[in-house]
């Protein structure tokens, strides 16, 4: 990653409304090619909403602000158009496809699909091509297997920006190391990776980190520093309500109170 070159992704003061909630409130973020950028935050703080907004999912069109990708304003582009520019997303809960085989699913996103590339993508997530290439991506697969196939699909696309929403959840302990290695490999190939995770060991492997709270990125910096900031100042909502030091009446300050969390400023 080199910040000497212009950023690949620039998110400028992006606001997103969902029915009954303002899920993003003036998000600012920059990412460079080859950067692994981890996004930390409590449940409901806006991590997945930011992921969906960057991908252009239905219902996540910004009401204010803009998103620039490689200098191009993509704020109003469709998901498919963004994907064709090199942006993709690995969902936290991957979709199931009745009748669609893993090999065909992986090939769909490849610019020049071939059996060799499909096999390489499966091997990159430690799945045996012989065992998985012909298996339908359906409910017969475990959640962990679907996660790995989802990651293989992203890896096989060779994207310029990969948004990975908790790629490590539901994956066994050994698998977490493999996912971390895959992310590093993608970054070394020039892919910018926005990684949403709750695992310290995954966050530690990032180049930079941002902390999102109440729909706003409140701190960006070195991963260790941001993790420390996160660990020391963020509390679940229930605890925050009961713990006076976190409440304004006790003289404390807080930045946001959202449905499930409070971050002290």
């Amino acid at each position: 990653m080199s910040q000497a070159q212009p950023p690949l992704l620039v998110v400028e003061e992006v606001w997103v409304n969902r029915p009954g909630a303002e899920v993003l409130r003036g998000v600012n973020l920059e990412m460079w090619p080859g950067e692994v950028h981890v996004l930390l935050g409590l449940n409901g703080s806006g991590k997945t909403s930011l992921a969906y907004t960057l991908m252009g999912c239905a219902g996540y069109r910004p009401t204010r602000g803009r998103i620039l990708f490689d200098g191009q304003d993509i704020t109003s582009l469709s998901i498919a158009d963004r994907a064709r520019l090199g942006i993709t997303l690995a969902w936290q809960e991957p979709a199931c496809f009745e009748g669609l085989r893993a090999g065909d699913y992986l090939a769909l996103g490849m610019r020049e699909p071939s059996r060799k590339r499909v096999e390489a993508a499966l091997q990159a997530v430690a799945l045996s091509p012989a065992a998985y290439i012909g298996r339908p991506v359906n409910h017969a697969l475990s959640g962990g297997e679907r996660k790995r196939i989802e990651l293989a699909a992203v890896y096989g696309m060779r994207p310029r920006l990969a948004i990975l929403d908790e790629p490590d959840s539901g994956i066994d302990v050994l698998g977490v190391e493999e996912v971390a290695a895959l992310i590093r490999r993608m970054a070394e190939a020039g892919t910018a990776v926005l990684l949403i995770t709750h695992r310290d060991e995954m966050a530690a492997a990032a180049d930079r980190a941002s902390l999102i709270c109440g729909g706003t990125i409140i701190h960006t910096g070195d991963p260790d520093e941001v993790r420390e900031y996160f660990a020391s100042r963020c509390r679940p909502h229930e605890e925050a309500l009961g713990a006076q030091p976190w409440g304004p009446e006790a003289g404390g300050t807080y930045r946001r109170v959202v449905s499930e969390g409070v971050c002290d400023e």
Partner: protein
Amino acid sequence: MSSRPSPASATSLLGQRDPAWAREFEAILRAYEEAGGKLTALQSERIASAVISGNRVLAVNEIPGVHIETEELPAGVHARIVVDPGARVEYPVHLCFGMVPAEGLQEILSEFEIGEEAEVGFLAHCTFPNALDLRHVMEAHIRIGPGATMRYAEGHYHGPHGGIQVLPTTHVTVEKDGRFENEFSLVHGRVGRLQLRLEVDVAARGVAELSTKAYGFDDDVIRVEEIVRLNGPDARGLTKTRVAVRDRAVSEVYTTAEGNAPGARGHMDCTEIVRGEAAARNVPVVVVRDDLARVTHEAAIGSVSRKELETLMARGLSEEEAVDIIIRGMLG
């Protein structure tokens, strides 16, 4: 009832028989291939087969253990297929039904008798490639003997125009320990008007598995009615229906499962995808007459899952491409 020349000899005799027969035979074989059939199967002496065009039986091939008798009727054909008790038929029996002309009526009356402990598969292709105003009526009676297994896969191709009515009615009796697996598929070309009715009576420990797939568009009409009566103890039944409709097409799926004996287990699973101005209806009926029987159902009707759609679009597919892949995947 009579037997006809085998397809193997018939193809080699194309030039020697009357030209009208040869033309019709060639045309129906071409249509058979378009519908996904394999000509090599019809040409093999080791594979039992029958080729029927309109009311003409163009070719029949019998093999040991499989007997095919046919009779030409004014508007169709009466066929009786008997599989000997204990026969293990290595290759599926290939059946080709169809009509090459654009207009007309074809009535197929068929009987299948699967002997005790026999095991046999059927691969049927029904093809009407030029249909503009055509009616295909089929009435089938199937008896699967004790301990016997019959697998019947039927693929349809109705051409691009939609000017066809296909009205098949089938009644199946599965005797004790017998097994019936049925796959009906109409997912390429237009449907026209399909009215499919399939009734199965299952005796003790028997099994019936029915799979139906159809894809309708323009003003196609799909009506599927499946009834499974689990009459014997520990009988099993499963219906799996997958229908997609778009434009102004209409789909109606009526499935009934009856648990009439102790230990009977039935399940009905229906998914219908609707696009554009199309409409779909699913009416599952569950009947249980024994307190040790259990019948369940699940149904989903609606548009393509948003998540599936967005996942494929995030791989670079347009919305239309993504919808097509999801539907094709569902319809197999």
